[in-house]
């Protein structure tokens, strides 16, 4: 009995020790070293007025396979530290205008919680950053004195309330590497029976992350994150040299939430079948006329065409095109459409959204932004870089480690009040084709992605890369797959050609790249009927398909591998 008590007595403090939040050595060291640094640098000449330390403590696994074998299998743990510094004042600092990169220096921190060593590296990085920031600030001041006044006289940095939050330390998901290596071998072997899928890759990246942020304003955040991303890609070439590609992407927090292996095998078969159909499909002709975009296609379209132009920092600076800068409170979309960006929304229609977060990368709480209400532009996606009439962040300052944050999209959601049931939309489309007297319309089933140019020096154009596009005939003939289509056009015009939408929102989860790096995003929209969309022929490669059939296919005579070389 005595022994029992002893054990029990011992067990209590032990249990208490385990359940109590462990003191976070990394965060403590960051805060201590930060206060020491700012205490000194705020008295330097020129003075530092803002300093932040952020650390991305990330563990990741990357596995890729092709033709039944692995080509990459790797695992890494890294703590990347970013020191962000602003010298001068919020009104004018070293990051002004094109000098944003002068605000940041990065390096690797020790992987163990060795406080002395961590502090020493932070000191080293901070000293290097002060050298860069202070000399840039002097240049900025000189330029201000000699250049004409800027149009937007907003300060360089907005004042925001400090935040403290330690994200729940629930156990992070894990990945059984061996299981996934074998699964990827099997999935990639699925393409081996298709001689005309020339190259293919199955790729998995799984990362768990704890991100730490401490700022001289008092913000202290610890946020866990986990992401699993599986990509299946197949490539072929048409006989005329056009490169054709299908990609399927799946994203979830934990690898267990990814589709089952059977479903993934189905996707491999689907990609192979799509590529076979695309090889045989006729090349699309230049066309302007009615078009129907699936919800996923419309979501990508809005992300590129509208979303990027709502990013706050693009409304400022002489090099930006500023499509929407002076259109606040004006109609920019048909009145039945509204657009929000809501990083606080976790899922939509049962699908987890990739662009969800609690605090942005400047430590500002994420907020839903009603960017366009009933067609009228109301707001921008703001980081802590103010613009005229929008002096505060709305929690959209995002970045990948190593880069300075700017206003970025999270979950862009398009809603409509002018809807018909999805099942009726096709008929409305056919009606529109008939009404315009066109021989056919184009149905965009899937879009790969796209890009948009917002710089002033380049045309204010966008391009999305549709991969599965069908000609829809008004006379009841079956739909016909075409290849080599590019949508072209200018943003304002295209957006106002939307006449009707479906009633279900579809989600596109992806990764968006811009000047602040790669960030996970989602876009959601209903299917949309456009009165007119313009398409052009895609520039194509001239390299013909491989001369020989793949290894092992020499003796099998199929029409697909008899790629007769063309005389040249």
């Amino acid at each position, binding site marked *: 009995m005595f022994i029992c008590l002893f054990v029990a007595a011992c067990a209590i403090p032990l249990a208490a020790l385990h359940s109590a939040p462990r003191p976070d050595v990394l965060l403590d060291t960051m805060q201590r070293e930060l206060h020491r640094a700012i205490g*000194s*640098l705020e008295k*330097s000449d020129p003075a530092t007025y803002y300093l932040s330390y952020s650390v991305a403590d990330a563990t990741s*696994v*990357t596995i*890729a396979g*092709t*033709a*039944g*074998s*692995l080509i990459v*299998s*790797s*695992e*890494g743990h*890294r703590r990347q530290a970013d020191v962000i510094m602003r010298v001068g004042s919020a009104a004018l600092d070293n990051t002004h205008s094109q000098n944003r990169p002068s605000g940041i220096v990065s390096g*690797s*921190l020790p*992987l*163990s919680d*060795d*406080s002395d060593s961590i*502090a*020493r590296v*932070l*000191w080293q990085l901070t*000293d290097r950053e*002060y*050298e860069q920031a202070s000399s840039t600030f002097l240049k900025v001041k000189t330029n201000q004195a000699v250049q004409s006044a800027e149009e937007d006289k907003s300060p360089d940095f907005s004042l925001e309330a400090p935040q403290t939050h330690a994200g729940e330390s629930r156990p992070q998901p894990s990945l059984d590497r061996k299981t996934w290596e074998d699964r990827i071998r099997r999935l990639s072997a699925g393409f081996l029976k298709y001689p005309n899928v*020339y*190259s293919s890759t199955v*790729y998995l*990246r799984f990362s768990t992350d704890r991100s730490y942020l401490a700022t001289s304003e008092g913000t202290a955040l610890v946020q866990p994150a986990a992401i699993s991303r599986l*990509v299946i*890609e197949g*490539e072929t070439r048409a006989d005329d040299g056009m*490169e054709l*590609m299908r990609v399927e992407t799946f994203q979830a927090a934990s690898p267990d939430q990814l589709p089952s292996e059977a479903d993934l095998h189905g996707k491999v078969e689907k990609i192979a079948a799509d590529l076979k159909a695309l090889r045989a499909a006729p090349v699309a002709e230049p066309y302007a006329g009615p078009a129907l975009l699936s919800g996923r296609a419309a979501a990508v379209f809005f992300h590129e065409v509208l979303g*990027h132009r709502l990013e706050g920092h693009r409304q400022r600076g002489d090099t930006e095109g500023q499509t929407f800068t002076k259109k606040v409170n004006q109609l920019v979309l048909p009145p039945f459409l509204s657009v929000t960006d809501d990083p606080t929304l976790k899922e939509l229609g049962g699908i987890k959204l990739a662009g969800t977060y609690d605090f942005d990368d400047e430590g500002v709480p994420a907020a839903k932004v009603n960017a366009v209400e009933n067609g009228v532009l109301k707001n921008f996606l703001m980081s802590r870089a103010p613009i005229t009439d929008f002096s505060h962040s709305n929690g959209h300052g995002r970045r990948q480690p190593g880069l300075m944050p700017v206003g970025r999209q999270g979950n862009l959601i398009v809603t409509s009040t002018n809807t018909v049931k999805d099942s009726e939309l096709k008929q409305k489309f056919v009606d529109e084709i008939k009404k315009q007297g066109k021989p056919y319309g184009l149905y965009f089933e899937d879009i790969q*992605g*796209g890009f948009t140019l917002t710089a002033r020096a380049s045309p204010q154009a966008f391009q999305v890369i549709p991969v599965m596009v069908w000609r829809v005939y008004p006379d009841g003939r079956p739909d016909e797959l075409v290849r080599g289509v590019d949508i072209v056009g200018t943003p304002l015009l295209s957006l106002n050609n939307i006449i009707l939408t479906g009633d279900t929102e579809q989600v596109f989860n992806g*990764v*968006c*790249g811009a000047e602040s790096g*790669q960030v996970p*995003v989602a*876009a959601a929209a209903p299917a949309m009927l456009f009165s007119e969309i313009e398409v052009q022929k895609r520039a194509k*490669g001239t*390299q*013909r398909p*491989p*001369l*020989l059939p*793949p*290894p*092992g296919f*020499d003796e099998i005579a199929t029409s697909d591998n008899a790629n007769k070389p*063309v*005389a*040249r």
Partner: protein
Amino acid sequence: MSKYSRRWKSPLILLLCAATLAHGKIALGQQPPDKSAKPAKQSNDSSPDVLLQAMQQELDRSKAKLKMDNVPAPYYIEYRLSDIDEYEAEAAFGALRQEQRFHGRSVRVVVRVGDYKQDSYYGPGVGSAAFAPLDNDATALRWQLWLATDEAYKAASQALAQKKAALSQFTADQPFDDFAKATALQSIEPVAKLDFDPKPWKETLEKSTALFRSDPKMESLTAALRFRAVNQYFVNTEGSVTRSGYTVYFVNAAASTQAADGMRLERSPYYGAANLKELPAPEEFQADVAKVIETLRGLRDAPVVDEDYRGPVLFGPDAASDLFFEMVGENVLGNRPKPGESARTTGDYSSNYKGRVLPNFLSVTDDPTMKTFDGKSLIGSYDVDDEGVRAEAVPVIEDGSLVSYLLGREPIRDFPESNGHGRAAPGQPPTPSIGNLIVHSKQSSSPEELKKKLIELCKQDNKPFGYYVETLAGTNPRLLYRVYQDGHQELVRGAAFDELDTRTLRNDLVAVGNDPLVSNRQGAIPSTVISPSILLDELEVKRSDQQNSKLPEYPPPALSSGR
């Protein structure tokens, strides 16, 4: 959903590259080595090599069937598969901040159209590379080879047309072939494997960099290691089949501090060997790092070289091996200049064939077949080069006179054949490279005698002191001492050499030591230089024009007690 224009092709390969970059390397993490690949099993038995077999099968198929209309069939095809197994770790200020195990494979395919006299090896025609499967899977490997061969053949046909167009501007006929003939070689060496326990090494890195605690002014102190096993598998249509491998083990330290005037002072010693047991023992490495800190402290207080000096300078063997690597090693390579250029090579020795390039008491040989020197392993050793040609010992400089160049299978004027020096970093095209570059002398003196000679020369010249260089950074001094007439030495800082070039070695080198040092060099292609001390009777030493940096804006963090 990318905001910027991307090339349509293969975003996944971009992704993989990005992943590689993001973590420095594609790493195997804490996994045991070679989980998926099993080259070890083939090492010492005579069972056929799955990789070589698959390569041979695809090579035979390509040779038999690859042909485009109106383009000649290839006259030569080669496949080279490189397998890298690598372990890297780095510590800073007493704590590990990077550790990776990486296993990767790539294939490189060269297809040549034309003939030995004139072919397509030019511009896009130098070959194509691809990821290779990590599993020993014949189907997956052949699939990658198939695509790379197709790409290489198409590129070769374009390259030959481009080359002919470029050459049509010149009237002179090229007096040598584009591609040297070589005998077919079959040589299967055992597979090279890494053999080490990471734990004691991680401790060594951490303990040695924890020594920053002994000096508050040490601004940076890191130590890193890189252990690497590379195996190259090679087949060509001439019938060569080779497998060759090597291991290299490197460990280094890097430290920096600033003098009171802001001058940045750095040291970065490294150690390399083909066997792990030749690297310094943990205590030895720590003692060396302690010594680095000590010399940096010395450098901080050392006087700056303010006055220009022209006079005798003695290079210790470490510094001398750097000089021979830079000034002789680079220039004895038979790199062919661009088409139409009349020079023999691209180096400083292009017009020195049969001329004097060193004093006549010195000779230089490159001998990859030598395995050890003075009991030390030479990492520049190999038996078969990366073009499937057997390595040869090549005397390049005899009695001061340049008698040969180091060559791969790309001939240059007067040198129609390879001498087994076509070497390649994994995944890269081969180029002429040194293996073990060895400096021989007919006459030599002990280091003490050399120091005496230095002082004698000073006396003759009426100089109060001469200079002794212990180590270099590039071709400028890092550890430099004044040697006074009474023999005492004084460390100095902030110096640079002026006009130190190949002519200096030819005209001003007056004596060498009997203290040859094996210097195993870091680099994508392992090489070794063996050189003794050298005495130059005249060299200019002046103040470096590098600007001083600002001192740290605020002091480093205080150390926690209890260490």
